């Protein structure tokens, strides 16, 4: 049941990301609510819960978000690999862990998309891409992660909430 809820949420979020969130420009970057939600879900609920969401979100974003199907899924996959960092308990504070993982996931997401653009014959200007898109997006996503994580933490069951710490 929990997988179906997660998958439905991921599908809805991918559509919201492609239609609504893509209109926002903060510091010249588009926030990635979908990515932030996936990482927050990973921190609050664990890797096993987030994996089906990554699959649904990646495929949906590929179909409706004007990204080549498969590329969006590949760009979201580092979120799964970052799950290992959660399990390693490298940071005591769950909030700091969420922010660090959002920053890392944001860099990885854009790095995969940038490689796809390079491979497709796009202009090779990694410094411009880093300065104009990747860094601002990482900053905006980290800022967005604070309320999203807080919301998800308080929406968690009391037992699960007790296991988490800010």
């Amino acid at each position, binding site marked *: 049941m929990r997988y179906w809820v997660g998958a439905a949420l991921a599908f809805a979020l991918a559509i919201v990301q492609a*239609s609504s969130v893509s209109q926002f420009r903060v510091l010249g*970057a588009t926030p*990635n609510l979908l990515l932030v939600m996936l990482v927050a879900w990973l921190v609050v609920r664990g890797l096993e819960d987030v994996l089906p969401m990554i699959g649904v979100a990646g495929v949906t974003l590929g*179909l409706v978000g004007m990204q080549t199907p*498969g590329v969006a899924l590949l760009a979201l996959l580092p979120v799964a690999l970052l799950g290992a960092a959660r399990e390693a308990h490298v940071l005591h504070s769950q909030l700091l862990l969420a922010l660090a993982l959002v920053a890392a996931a944001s860099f990885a997401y854009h790095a995969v998309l940038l490689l796809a653009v390079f491979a497709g014959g*796009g*202009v090779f*200007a990694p410094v411009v*891409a880093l300065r104009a898109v990747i860094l601002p997006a990482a900053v905006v996503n980290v800022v967005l992660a604070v309320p999203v994580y807080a919301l998800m933490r308080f929406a968690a069951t009391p037992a699960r909430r007790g296991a988490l710490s800010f």
Partner: protein
Amino acid sequence: MTARTLAWTGFLAIAAFVLMGASRIAVLDPVENLTLNVTAPIQRGLRSATGPVADWVNNLTDASSLSSENKRLRDENERLQAELARAREDAIAQQQTADLDAVRRQFPQDTFLDAGVVGRESSGLRALIAIDRGSRDGVRDGMIVVSEGRSLVGTVSRVFDDYAWVTLITDPKSAVSAMVQESRAQGVVAGNYDGSLNMEFVGQGAPVKKGDFVVTSGIGGAYPPGVVIGRVSGVDNTEQDLFQTVKVDHLAALSDLERVLVLTSFTPNRLEGGR
């Protein structure tokens, strides 16, 4: 990571590559068209519902793009500048060789297909829009797209039955053969990740100055000649360089496009068209 989560991750990675391969050979086109048909009304509703909030946030965080007044003035400015450029282009064309006149006579009556913008690429690394016209409406791969002010917006890069993707001129994969209208200096206008336009391969001796109009040259056959792209906003000509780099401000308000026109009367020759 447990064996179970590792297997899941591996499965998703394989699925990603399978999807990329399927997309490359257009197997997924009907699925994409169906998904767009189903979700387009939802997306349109969400976009119009959150549009005012997005405008407010964008204005709050970006002082350079204030309010709809700015957009209206920019649209008006674009229309007037495009008219001015077209008038100049006509005057130059009349004075120049019969060859150029002959080229222009190949497109005596342009026909356009009106299209609404229904989507926008969301990662920020590409400059793509989706329009609500597809192959059923006569849209073909490579057709050029202009704004309502008739300045160049981009090229149709993917066509579904009811929708099409347009690669904007600011996209990092876009490259348009162009010339400076006043001096006729030729080059290639290319997009970049920061949304800027640079005209490359302009010879060091070519006279180019700020404010000059940049139009399509028609070389290669992917674009008709004389379509306005923008105006020169700066020139970088270090003597050691073989070419000067010309910065170009596009005329069309690419970030606020709501409606565009697909030029259906021009059949592009796929000798060029993008990197």
